[in-house]
């Protein structure tokens, strides 16, 4: 069923970029925050500022509960996954350190690591197979080669859909005294998470993808005791006399006025996912497999990532041997009102791993609100466009 605010005749398959339409409870929470709780949270103690502060407390508590984080103080709200990854990487790594990183990372990891490499961090890449899967043994071998400060990897690929065994990576990293830093942009929401059990030292997620919140807010989880240096200093309403940034969480990582409407929306999304996440994920899995299997039948079309029998996040990317990806995306949009994303998906490493650097791919990202009719419509359209 479509939510209010949607453009009725669009079949939206760009959930891996951002989920849309947002659940009505998210829209309502944003409006409520702007209308009834528009003060500056943490700054003042008058009614309208307190209302904003309480919204943030509620969201932090509900996001922590959704993600399996026992202490909500370990959740920091950041402007997005990219911002959180920059904080985790630059806050934990220093010149002379070595990191081991997977070969399918998004530019949100690859570019900060490129900058850190220029500053003297050694970056060693562990090759995934062409479907994007990394063998834990390869991580183990890489970590054993030289002292390692951190293993960095995504939970799931935004191009290939492959899910990494991050729990195994955590054990390997910890055995070697290294951190595990996880880019959870495509994991959070689409995979059921218990971060306390998973073992990641830092787990970063976009609020606006599988977590179904608004754009402009992300989640940074730092395990207790993980002492990442903050990237920004500034006001937060606490300890104002002190010239140094407070070290208490979450204030340490939240300098400046937060995105209260976005955080309120994310809190509402977290409550929705806590209540209905299993059903939402089951639908996503079913529709992903349906689409995947049908696309495999289209002559000349290569489907990237693991085979349908293997678990993947709800992303299916394809390359046609004759028709360019941008052509396919344009025709799907203009002739069929189907929204997909063509190109490199900000993930040139993943495309290099899959052997699609030259062509890019067309990505179908499934998520909340996509129906079986949408998938049937996409399959019919793809048969025609690829004929």
């Amino acid at each position: 069923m479509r939510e209010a605010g949607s453009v009725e005749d669009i079949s939206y398959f760009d959930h891996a970029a951002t989920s849309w339409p947002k659940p009505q409870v998210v829209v309502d929470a944003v409006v409520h925050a702007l209308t009834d709780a528009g003060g500056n949270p943490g700054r003042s103690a008058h009614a309208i500022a307190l209302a904003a502060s309480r919204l943030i407390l509620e969201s932090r508590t509900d996001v922590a509960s959704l993600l399996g984080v026992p202490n909500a103080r370990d959740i920091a709200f950041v402007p997005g996954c990219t911002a959180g990854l920059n904080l985790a990487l630059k806050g934990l790594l220093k010149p002379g350190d070595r990191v081991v990183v997977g070969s399918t990372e998004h530019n949100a990891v690859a570019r900060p690591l490129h900058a850190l490499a220029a500053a003297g961090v050694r970056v060693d890449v562990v090759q995934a197979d062409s479907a994007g899967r990394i063998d834990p043994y390869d991580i183990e071998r890489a970590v054993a080669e030289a002292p390692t400060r951190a293993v960095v990897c995504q939970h799931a690929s935004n191009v290939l859909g492959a899910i990494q065994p991050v729990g195994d990576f955590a054990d390997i990293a910890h055995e070697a005294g290294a951190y595990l830093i996880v880019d959870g942009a495509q994991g959070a929401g689409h995979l059921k998470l218990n971060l306390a059990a998973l073992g990641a030292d830092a787990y970063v997620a976009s609020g606006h993808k599988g977590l179904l919140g608004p754009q402009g807010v992300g989640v940074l989880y730092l395990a207790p005791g993980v002492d990442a240096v903050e990237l920004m200093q500034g006001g937060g309403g606490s300890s104002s006399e002190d010239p140094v940034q407070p070290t208490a969480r979450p204030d340490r990582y939240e300098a400046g006025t937060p995105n209260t409407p976005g955080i309120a929306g994310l809190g509402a999304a977290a409550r929705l996912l806590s209540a209905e996440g299993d059903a939402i994920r089951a639908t996503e899995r079913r529709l992903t497999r349906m689409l995947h299997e049908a696309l495999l039948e289209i002559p000349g079309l290569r489907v990237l990532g693991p085979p349908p029998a293997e678990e993947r996040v709800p992303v299916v990317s394809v390359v046609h041997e004759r028709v360019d990806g941008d052509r396919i995306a344009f025709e799907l949009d203009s002739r069929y009102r189907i929204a997909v994303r063509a190109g490199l998906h900000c993930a040139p490493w993943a495309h290099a791993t899959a052997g699609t650097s030259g062509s890019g791919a067309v990505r179908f990202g499934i998520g909340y609100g996509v129906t079986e009719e949408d998938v049937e419509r996409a399959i019919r359209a793809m048969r025609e466009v690829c004929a």
Partner: protein
Amino acid sequence: MIEVAPFIVYGFATTHDALVGERTLLAADITHMTIPTPKSLGALCGIALRVPEASAHDAELALTAARCGWTVRVQMQDRVL
């Protein structure tokens, strides 16, 4: 003569802690007010919790059980106008 009952003000390091404290006192049905942190409490977050002295013991038990540690505890009195 006007009697002015003393009260206890609890100051917290972060807004998060102060509001977890507020939530805890609400749940435990302990009379309290959420107030701007008095300057005299020092470098803290902007929100403090004010509890009548007679309820302070119960408040502290509840806050401790909720692992919501206050940073500063001060006894105060309202000014008489």
